[in-house]
């Protein structure tokens, strides 16, 4: 039982490039989330999904896109990367609303 897995672990992007951060969970959770964590700041919700085919914006969605075609996968797409998107990105899943979230190991992204 791997839980929540994320790839890649590290990535350096040039300004204007695009990439997809992958997230997979094997717990059959309906709810999935993407957060970013900046030094000295709390985790900020980017997007979330309550089931396959359903996504919604979080607190900081600008510059990102998501899709949810299966229960297991919730990829995060960065279009036209900017230095402000340098951060550590965490994917999480939960079995329902107001339930504990299980986090992946994170992706450290640097945009230069």
């Amino acid at each position: 039982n791997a839980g929540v897995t994320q790839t890649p672990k590290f990535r350096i992007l040039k300004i204007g490039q695009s990439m997809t951060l992958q997230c997979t969970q094997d717990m059959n959770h309906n709810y999935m989330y993407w957060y970013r964590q900046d030094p000295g700041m709390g985790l900020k919700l980017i997007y979330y999904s309550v089931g396959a085919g359903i996504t919604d914006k979080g607190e900081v969605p600008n510059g990102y896109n998501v899709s949810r075609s299966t229960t297991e996968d919730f990829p995060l797409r960065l279009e036209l990367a900017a230095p402000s998107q340098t951060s550590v990105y965490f994917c999480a899943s939960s079995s329902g609303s107001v339930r504990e979230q299980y986090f992946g190991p994170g992706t450290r992204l640097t945009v230069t």
Partner: protein
Amino acid sequence: EDQVTQSPEALRLQEGESSSLNCSYTVSGLRGLFWYRQDPGKGPEFLFTLYSAGEEKEKERLKATLTKKESFLHITAPKPEDSATYLCAVQATQGGSEKLVFGKGMKLTVNP
């Protein structure tokens, strides 16, 4: 706007020296308050969920309590392996939003 404030930002303890971490919150209607532990370079790990004032939960050396304005994480006789950043987060009732609002975290160091 929902807010979560954790204090102190950092705390150094000697092994065996008990203390408490504070999480004060301002939300429109609390659905749940969560405590997580985060080790360097890893994703947050779930500790507790509290749903209503007066509720308490315990796990090994940790005990979480909740009032209408704040939550405390009490650490009894800590060990060096309790060193980590502790995160507090709240989920409010805003229109069914799934948004979890995190505090900035509290870095605990326990010296042997």
